[in-house]
């Protein structure tokens, strides 16, 4: 076996140009498949990472009017939607697959948060005690909200690091006072989202998504929020699912429950909906998958054509070497030996082509990611499958020529000069 391989490689080396041209179909096919698979994987990984964040499993269930989330502003309360009561919250927490629930209210802008006369441009949130845990924030300085802060309706604020750099360019923030709607709020702590979620910014839309949140967030207690913004705004809900797989179902179930309990007029335009990141990711992935599936088919056709090329050149090789085959048979080579020799040669040819194709594919994927700024991830299973497949092509398309060689009659073969 080993000697067969050695001989086959020698044969390939003896006909360098011919072998290379024969392999070209396989090289192109395999390289194309590796490139495509790497690009798909890279894109999918990025989509998932951007939309879901790794390990957070948080689904936001928010109030929608028609297809759009309701953006609360002053004096514009949604009709017939009530504030989520503690009982409802408990029912949410007891749902299967739910790890933790946090209720919050939010102003994307226009919250008029001032520090020394200049206005903060980020978002303002009124949160409960679970919020920081649900989203995986960790404390940098100061402290988090405590039970007595809520009971005593203290006017306190916590900032994230982006908000700190936007508001207090040089000052130490803890202990400073913000003015929110004319009320003073004391900054007690600074938080930061933990390392598990770092957005990848590669496109303009990534950047917009990031920029939206990059000016930072000011957090108030739910009670503190009510002082500044009023107590009757319905909350949004962040549901942390126990696992990524159940995110979708848990989110939907939570949305159904809230729509049933909170909205007095079910035929109206208001409804709670879960913002399903996994579903969005899958939709995006499916889109790229269907276009890429076409490309994989084209690459497959290239492999087929490459295989036929290998068969053709092996047939030529067999008839060129009729004499050699005749001699080998005269010296006592059985059919199996001749078959093995030519099959090994075909497989060596295609697997060498496959190897070059894999290297070329990795190189091309790398080049593409630099040139077009798309992410790629080399897929190890794809490489293993490509290598196995290229050997298989050799065996399949080598079978006919090798059988032809093995069946030769030694006298006729020897007589032909």
């Amino acid at each position: 076996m080993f000697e067969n391989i050695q001989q086959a490689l020698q044969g390939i080396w003896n006909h360098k140009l011919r072998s290379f041209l024969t392999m070209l179909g396989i090289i192109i096919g395999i390289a194309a498949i590796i490139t495509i698979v790497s690009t798909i994987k890279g894109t999918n990984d990025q989509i998932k990472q951007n939309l879901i964040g790794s390990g957070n499993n948080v689904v936001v269930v928010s109030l929608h009017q028609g297809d759009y989330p309701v953006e609360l502003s002053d004096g514009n309360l949604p009709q017939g939607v009530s504030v989520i009561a503690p009982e409802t919250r408990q029912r949410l927490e007891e749902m299967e697959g739910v790890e933790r629930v946090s209720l919050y209210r939010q102003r994307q802008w226009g919250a008029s948060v001032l520090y020394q006369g200049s206005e903060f441009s980020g978002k303002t949130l009124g949160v409960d005690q679970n919020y920081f845990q649900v989203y995986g924030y960790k404390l940098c300085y100061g402290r988090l909200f405590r039970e007595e802060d809520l009971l005593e309706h203290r006017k306190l604020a916590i900032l994230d690091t982006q908000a700190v750099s936007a508001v207090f360019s040089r000052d130490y923030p803890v202990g400073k006072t913000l003015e929110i709607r004319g009320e003073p709020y004391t900054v007690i702590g600074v938080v930061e989202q933990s390392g598990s979620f770092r957005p990848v910014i590669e496109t303009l839309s990534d950047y917009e998504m990031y920029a939206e949140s990059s000016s930072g967030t000011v957090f108030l207690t739910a009670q503190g929020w009510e002082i500044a913004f009023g107590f009757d705004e319905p909350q949004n809900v962040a549901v942390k699912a126990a696992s990524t797989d159940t995110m979708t179902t848990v989110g939907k179930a939570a949305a159904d429950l809230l729509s049933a309990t909170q909205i007095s007029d079910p035929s109206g335009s208001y409804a709670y909906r879960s913002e399903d990141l996994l579903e969005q990711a899958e939709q995006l992935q499916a889109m790229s998958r269907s276009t890429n599936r076409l490309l994989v088919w084209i690459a497959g056709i290239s492999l087929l054509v490459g295989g036929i090329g290998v068969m053709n050149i092996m047939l030529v090789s067999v008839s060129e070497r009729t004499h050699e085959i005749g001699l080998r048979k005269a010296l006592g080579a059985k059919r199996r030996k001749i078959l093995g020799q030519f099959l090994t040669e075909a497989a060596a040819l295609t697997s060498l082509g496959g190897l070059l194709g894999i290297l070329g594919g990795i190189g091309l994927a790398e080049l593409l990611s630099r040139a077009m700024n798309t992410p790629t991830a080399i897929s190890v299973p794809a490489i293993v499958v490509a290598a196995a497949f290229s050997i298989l092509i050799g065996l399949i398309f080598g079978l006919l020529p090798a059988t032809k060689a093995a069946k030769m009659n030694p006298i006729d073969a020897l007589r032909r000069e």
Partner: protein
Amino acid sequence: MILNMEHICKSYYRGKNEVPVLHDVSLRVEEGDYLAIMGPSGSGKTTLMNLIGCLDKPSSGSYHLAGEDVSVKKDNALAELRNKYIGFVFQSFYLLPKMSALENVALPLMYAGVPKKERVDRAREALCSVGLEDRMKFLPNQLSGGQCQRIAIARAMAGRPTLLLADEPTGALDTASGEQIMELFSKINAGGGTIVMITHEPSIAAHAKTICHIRDGRLSAPEEVRL
């Protein structure tokens, strides 16, 4: 008895026409024999050589080689017989051009399933016995015709065959090289080797111990060669 052919007939089919080539050929070869089969071209001597060498099967009659019935064997079994019992020497050497002298000689041993190390040792030994110990790594096209034929003889002898079967072994060589080959054959025969040689040259046939003539597909009785 090494070789026993009885009432062998062989015909080929050209389209639907049967073309008889050998008629009722009987031949016996004992161990240590050195037989030359002489005949002009078209006499059927190549067909006879193919039959003796188990490259072909007779249309009728029986052929036993080293006690084995050749006429009932199939393709793979014939290959095994050739590998085990026959050492071929062809007119135009038939060496594989991309392989060194040593690799060429070791080739039949590979098909006999001899392990690699032993194969190399035996091939080296065979090359020494034909006087080419300093040409082992050479490719055939770097060697003269006489040297190539000696490699071919080494290849034939490396498998320690029962019968050395030579088809016009000097046909492609000049007289001096031819003489060397004939000396080598005589040496092999003197060492106990059995040789059957096919030729049309009387001067070459004269090196054998016995001669048979073949003409129009019929084989004459063997005659002793007088020295």
